[in-house]
């Protein structure tokens, strides 16, 4: 039976892994590839490396980082996000070891053609659309973090999903990022399209939150970033407090 997933997120700023709080405050953590190697050993279901400053500065994907990640010989599915604008860049990211690619839709509002080309080149199953959202009354607001402006979020912003060009959407409750137990579940329940599998991220610290989110049919995965950095075996500890039918069983690696 297909299991739901715990995605471990490594937020990267200026090439270094950081804790990110509400898209504006950061604390240094270390080397992304060392965090990734650790998460790999913990047996996370997927590892997402999210570079948060490449798209804004038009720097394209961080190929150097991908090479360092590859040298860690990860055996966990790797998702890369950050600065991927063209199909060529997406293919290059996959060539360097990523299994799936995150696209920041805010950077493609006026021209979705590159995303179609990515789907043709890599297959829609490899693509995830990223949407930093917030709730305003009963409606959803979509943040363009290039300029910090939020606009109403509606069905036509995600028309591509209807055409099967992108497999999953990642909802980031950006204002609650790094805030324990704060993910706003209405960002999921009010998502304008109901057949799009959703990954919830931002303010998910408690297994109880994940249990509720993962019980929703539309939610295929929950993503946790900051909160996996405070204790040893944090990923296993988190998964073990969830009803075991939801996620695949935890593993504890051994030397011998």
């Amino acid at each position: 039976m297909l299991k739901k997933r715990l995605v471990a997120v490594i937020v990267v700023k200026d090439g270094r892994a950081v804790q990110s709080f509400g898209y504006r405050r950061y604390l240094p953590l270390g080397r992304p590839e060392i965090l990734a190697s650790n998460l790999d050993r913990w047996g996370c279901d997927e590892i997402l490396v999210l570079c948060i400053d490449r798209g804004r500065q038009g720097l394209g994907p961080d190929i150097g980082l991908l090479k360092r990640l590859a040298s860690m010989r990860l055996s966990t599915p790797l998702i890369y996000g950050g600065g991927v604008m063209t199909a060529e860049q997406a293919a290059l990211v996959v060539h360097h070891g990523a299994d799936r690619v995150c696209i920041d839709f805010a950077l493609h509002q006026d021209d979705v053609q590159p995303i179609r080309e990515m789907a043709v080149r890599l297959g829609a199953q490899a693509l995830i659309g990223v949407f930093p959202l917030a709730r305003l009354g009963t409606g959803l607001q979509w943040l363009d973090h290039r300029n910090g402006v939020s606009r109403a979020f509606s069905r036509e912003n995600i028309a591509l999903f209807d055409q099967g060009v992108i497999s999953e959407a990642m909802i980031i409750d950006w204002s609650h990022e790094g805030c324990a137990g704060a993910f706003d579940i209405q960002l999921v329940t009010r998502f304008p399209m109901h057949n799009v599998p959703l990954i919830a991220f931002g303010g998910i610290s408690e297994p109880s939150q994940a249990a509720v989110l993962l019980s929703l049919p539309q939610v295929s995965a929950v993503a946790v970033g900051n909160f996996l950095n405070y204790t040893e075996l944090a990923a296993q500890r988190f998964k073990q407090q969830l009803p075991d039918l939801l996620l695949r069983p935890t593993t504890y690696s051994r030397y011998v």
Partner: protein
Amino acid sequence: MASSDITEFRACSRCLYTTAHPLGLVIDEEGICSGCRVHEEKDSLDWNERWMRLESIVKPYRSQSGRNYDCVVPVTGGGDSYYVLHLVKNLLKLNPLLVTNNKYFNTPLGVRNLANLRTRFDCDILVQNINPDSVRKIIRSTLRKFGSIYWPCLAGQTAFPVQTAVRYEVPLVIWGAHQGLEQVGMFSHAHEVQMTRRYRRDHDLMGYEADNLLSTFDSLTEGDIWQYRYPDDHDLKSIGVTGIYLGNYVRWDPKAQHEQMIRDYAYQSAGFSRTFDTYDFVDCFNYMNLHDQLKLYKHGYSKVTDHACREIRHGRLTRDHGLALVLQHEQKSAEYTGMFCDWLGVQPGALQFLMDNHRNRSFWRETAPRQWEFSGPTVNGTLQLSGVGTQGKSSDRCVFKKNSALDTRENAKYITIGKGYP
């Protein structure tokens, strides 16, 4: 060397760290670094409430049968060991097993302090002595590959306590302060960060776990490095090993704490050429000397900057006084280098050649082959005296007591195992 490779590092406007700090440093829009921001919590948190939180955390770990220790406490003859034991034994009333990995660069003062520690607090201790042949082989490799003479000391001191927790089935390991939190504000106190294998590899060990030292091109064998392996996830889980940092629950102020320990438990201190701090690391001939010289080569700053930042943040030094102290000590030559050469079996000139290979070109210009000129933050304009707070000598609230010396014998020598009394 083209100047272009002097990448742009920014300095914090309150302390003396720059964004080149190896643990990572984030500077916010007001020009204040993450280390200073987290330090502000030390004056806003309710430390009585934090202490009660600590008591509730350690309570379940107390051995019910009394047939085993309550916790494992890593100790040395320098650093925060005295204050940690004061908290663990006197206030938390726990029965600790002390552990330490023998780094072999031991000073007589360090041997004395450790002997005095375990006598005054009346604790059992386990000292791991990894065979020196392996230790020397490893240092030759880590010095060549990434400019470190200290890898085995750090790897042993961060692995042995956890291995002991697994072997003795004593899940709780208690450390002093979290270096990442104290220096660069890697975590908030509220995060109550615990001991993790990831932090150890990433920062304590510069990215290299024991097995990462092995390669078909090197003479190191598994037999040399296996004792530095961190326990695997299976063992950590089966015993429930948990490492906590007292600095998350007690307002950590090393200078004040050391001075209390000098008064109450006769901790002894000593002076160094490369820093004004007389309390930290008096148990090692190399930490404040050759190891600190390599730090300047690789990262463009030295321990004296760590000490100055700490004292600035505690309000006992102005930024200018701190910078003046850094300028006074940073370029002083390291002592006891000859002793290290004899111990490792390398020629002094060869050692300098090995060390030069690891000069960071962001902070050192090779003006001519093997001629180096420092261009780090204190000289390239990144850190500058503001000219406001520099009148008179450094403030009198920042005086460090020195009541002994690293080695009072006329020819100093490393001590493997010492008597440490009287």
